[in-house]
C-alpha cells in the first residue's frame, strides 16, 4: 500500500473545493431554518405547556417522541408525507381539499428539497429545545411576574421584559445545539433524498460520507473531517461555557 506525503495538500483542497463550500452552505441553511423557525416555535410550545392544564404530565411525555424516533425512520416517515407520486399525506391533503389538481413532486425539486429536509429535521429537534425552555421557565421566580402584574404589566410586557431576557442563555444554548446538530445530520438525508436531487440536499455530513466511503478518498476526507471537527469543537466550547461555568478555569 504505497502512499505519498503531500503536506497540507488535502487541507488546501478541502478549503478551496466549491462542493465543500456548497455543502457547508446547505448545512448552515438547515441550522438557519432550525433556528429561525425552531426557536420561536419551541418557545411558544414551552409557554403553552408551562401553564397548568389537565393531563399535562402525559402531554409532556408525548412531547419527547420525535426526538427518539430513529433518524432512518424519520426519513421513511417524511417520505410517507412528501411522497412525490400523490400517495403521500401532503399531496393527499392538498388534493382532498382541491387546492391542487395534480400531485406535486415535492422532493424532486432542488430548490424545495432542502427546505423540506430542514422542516423534517425541525420536527425532530423541537422537543429538546422545548424541554430546555421549559426547564428555563421553571427557574424564573414567580414573584417577578407577580410584582410586574401588580405594577400593571400585561402579558406581552411581562414576556418582553421578564421571560424573554431571562431565557436568553437557553436561547443561545438552543442556537448552538441546533448548529452542531446540522453538522451531524446524516441519516435523515441518507434515507429521504440520498443527497439529491442534483446534490441539492448534500449537507456536509453526507458530503464527507460520500468522499470517504463511496469515493474512497480517505486522505482528503480525513482532512475535511478535521476542519469540521475544529468548527464543532469551537461550537461545543461555546456551549460548555454557557452551561457549565463551574468546570471552566479549574
Amino acid at each position: 500500500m504505497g502512499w505519498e506525503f503531500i503536506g497540507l495538500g488535502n487541507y488546501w483542497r478541502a478549503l478551496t473545493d466549491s462542493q465543500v463550500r456548497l455543502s457547508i452552505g446547505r448545512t448552515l441553511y438547515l441550522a438557519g431554518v432550525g433556528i429561525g423557525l425552531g426557536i420561536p416555535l419551541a418557545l411558544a410550545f414551552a409557554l403553552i405547556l408551562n401553564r397548568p392544564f389537565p393531563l399535562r404530565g402525559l402531554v409532556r411525555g408525548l412531547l419527547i417522541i420525535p426526538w427518539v424516533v430513529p433518524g432512518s425512520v424519520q426519513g421513511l416517515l417524511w417520505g410517507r408525507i412528501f411522497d412525490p407520486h400523490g400517495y403521500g399525506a401532503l399531496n393527499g391533503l392538498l388534493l382532498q381539499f382541491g387546492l391542487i389538481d395534480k400531485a406535486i413532486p415535492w422532493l424532486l425539486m432542488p430548490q424545495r428539497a432542502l427546505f423540506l429536509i430542514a422542516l423534517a429535521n425541525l420536527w425532530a429537534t423541537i422537543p429538546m429545545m422545548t424541554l430546555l425552555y421549559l426547564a428555563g421557565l421553571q427557574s424564573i421566580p414567580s414573584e417577578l411576574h407577580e410584582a410586574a402584574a401588580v405594577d400593571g404589566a400585561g402579558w406581552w410586557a411581562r414576556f418582553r421584559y421578564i421571560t424573554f431576557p431571562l431565557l436568553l442563555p437557553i436561547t443561545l444554548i438552543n442556537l448552538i445545539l441546533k448548529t452542531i446538530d446540522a453538522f451531524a445530520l446524516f441519516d435523515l438525508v441518507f434515507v429521504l433524498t440520498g443527497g439529491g436531487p442534483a446534490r441539492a440536499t448534500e449537507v456536509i455530513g453526507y458530503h464527507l460520507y460520500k468522499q470517504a466511503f463511496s469515493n474512497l478518498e480517505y486522505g482528503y476526507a480525513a482532512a475535511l473531517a478535521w476542519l469540521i471537527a475544529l468548527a464543532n469543537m469551537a461550537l461545543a466550547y461555546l456551549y460548555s461555557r454557557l452551561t457549565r461555568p463551574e468546570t471552566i478555569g479549574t
Partner: protein
Amino acid sequence: MKPPYNPSAMGRSVRRVGQGLLQTLLVLAVLAFILLPILWLLISSLSHSQDLLRIPPRWLPWPPDFSHYRELLVGTGQTGTTLTQVTLRAFRYALRNSFLVAAGVSLTALALGSLAGYAFARFRLVGGAQLIYILLLVQMLPVIVLLIPLYMTMNRLGMLDKLSTVIALLSAYHMPFVIWILRGYFQSIPAELEEAALVDGANRLQALVRVTLPLSLPGLFAAGVYTFMQSWNAFMIPLIFTSSDTMRTVTVAIALFVGRHYTEYGLMSAAGVLASLPPILLAIFFQRYLLAGLTAGATKG
C-alpha cells in the same frame, strides 16, 4: 395595561372559561405538530396495501389491517408482493442485532463508565477537570469525523462486519456521557459512607460495588436507558462497519429497505413503527430519569 374592572363573579368565570378553551386549543395544536407525522406512519402500517395506493389516500382505514406486521415478524414473503424472503429475513436479523447491540453497549458503557466516573469523582487526578471536559467536547463531534481512521484500522485488523466491533465503537462513543452522569451521582454520595466500609476492611473496589453503586442506581439506570436508546438509534457506525444482511442493525436495515422496495408502503411503515417502539416506550416510561440528567446542564449556573 389592564383596565380597572369591576370584578363581577360572572365576568370572571366567563373569562376563565375562555382562557381554558384557548389553552386547550393551543395544547391540541402542539400535540398535532408532535403526533400527526408519526400517526400517519402508524396509519400507513395498518392500512391495506391497496388503500395506500389511492389518491387521495384513505385517511382512516377501518378495520385496521395487521398483515404487514404479521408478514414482517413471521411471514414467508410469498404473498404476491415483490418483497423477497431475503428482506424479511434481514429485517428479523436486524431487530435481533439491534437488541444485542443496544444491550451490549449499555452494559459495556456502564461497567467501564462507572469505574471512570468513580475515579473522576473520588480521586484527585492530574488534569482530571480538563480531561472530563475534553471528553465532553469529543462527544459533541459529529460521529463521521471520527470514523475514517477507525474504519481503516478495523479493516486492517479484519474486524469489519462484526457486531462486537459495532458494540465496542458505540460504547466508546457514548462513554463520555455515561462518565459525566455517573461522576455527578458519585459526587452526590457522601464519601464518609465508603470510608466506613474501608475502615471495616473492604478495599476500594468492594466499597464501590457494595456501597456507592447501590446508592447510585437511579444514575446508573438513567445512563443505561439513555445509552440503550442512543445505540438503538445509531446509524452511521453500523452502516459503515457492517455489510452483510445478518449483521445489520434495524436502523440501517430500514434505510436499505426503503431503497430496495420503494412502493411497499405498508410493510415499510410497519418496519418503521417496530423500529421506533423500543426507544419511544423507554423515553415515555423513563422520561423523569432521563430528563433529570439531560436538562440539568442547561439550568445550572
